[in-house]
């Protein structure tokens, strides 16, 4: 079964909820880097990566981290990988 973008978005929100207060995510802009709007630092970004890895049992090489900057780019990155896995 194909994994759709809205489902991935929801999962990413779940990962972010562990890091910041829920209301900070209500107005999340999908095309703006997480770091900018949620004041995440490098350690927080590692938490995002680790959260996604654990969620999907997916290896995410360090070279790919720049693709996880915004909600849109993260979904774009994960979508083919998750559907390939299926």
């Amino acid at each position: 079964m194909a994994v759709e973008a809205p489902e991935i978005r929801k999962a990413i929100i779940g990962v972010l909820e562990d890091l910041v207060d829920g209301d900070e995510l209500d107005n999340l802009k999908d095309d703006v880097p997480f770091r900018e709007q949620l004041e995440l630092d490098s350690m927080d970004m590692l938490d995002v990566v680790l959260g996604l890895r654990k969620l999907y049992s997916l290896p995410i090489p360090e070279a790919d981290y720049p693709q996880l900057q915004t909600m849109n780019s993260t979904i774009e990155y994960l979508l083919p990988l998750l559907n390939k896995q299926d």
Partner: protein
Amino acid sequence: MSNRSESERIVITGVGLTSPNGNGLAEFRNALLTGKSGVSPYEIRYFGKTFAGICNCNVLKWRGKREVRRGTRAGSLAVYCSGEAMEDAGLDINALDKDRVGVYIGVTEHGNVETENEIYEIKQYDYDCKYWSHHHNPRTVANNPAGEVTLQFGITGPHYTLGAACAAGNAALIQGVQQLRLGEVDLALAGGVSESIHTFGIFAAFNAQNALARHEDPTKASRPFDADRNGIVVSEGGCVYVLERLSDAKKRGAKIYGEILGYGMNSDATDFVLPNAERQAQCVRKALKSASLAPDEIDIVNTHATATVMGDALEIEALRDVFADSKKTYVNNTKSFIGHAMGAAGALELAGNLPAFQDGVVHPTINVDNLDPKCEIRNLALNTPIEVGSVRAILNNSFGMVGINAVVIVGKYDEA
């Protein structure tokens, strides 16, 4: 009461605490005078059901969710207690010369909780180290709880923890006094914290040692000096003091809780676990000498007793030796209410007694149904508070594993 100059006399001007039976000094003291236990049922992975003293302070008062998550429970307790202590001392945190503030936090152990959690986490991934948290190192470095305080408040003076087993709270207070007298800092945040209830290992180890409290009623489980005592209730907690030179405190018109008149520290050098009454007595005498006080000038001895069969009897043996001729000295125990708050114990238990300078009451040792003859000592405050009128000096005992002893004496401060 002291021959030292005002710049060498160190006073307590703020108290921040969280205890299983109350947050803040007033609530804690009230619980101690009304017989309110802080021990409740508790369950922890692998070990199962037991008892513990659990704190419910609002750790989000002084830091955000992100810092709480990234840091440790010990760090959150240290930040909470430090913030409360500075607020209580009437200090404007941002107006302080932060380079002249030192943070000295006592811990019994640190890193066990985080390591156990992370091993549990990667177990879900068949122990694949790829899933090991990058927070592991900053969480488990031994200075972590003190360092988290500096991060939170932008303090740039020295910080470190003092690893001194269950004598750590007193050891940190002593360190604060010494650093102020050396002129290394102008203000010390000193005390202790414990997050130990979040490691299954401490419960399993005390249990294996036959030293973990059991009772049908959790509130009766911690029973130092009782003939049927059967071990320790493990608790979390924290207590941080603002310490200043008397000259500085007077200059800013600070409220003064008491003066640290003296202290003693030594080592048993005899056993990993069993205490040594002779060394304990020696440590108490060292503290008395440093405070220039005779035993009968001490009004309250707050014991370390944890409700182990051997430990309680040995401490009383030491106290009987030192206070044999001291008719006015009362003896009590705070762990009977809150269990053993480990690294926080010394600082927290001392705090519970400080209000006696004002109210003249010795809080009791509760849960003593049948006093063990080996624990009998003159003026042991049993089960109900005792009004003694004037309290001028409190001696606080704290002893720890591998043979470490720390005794602190605090005196009432009289405005000249």
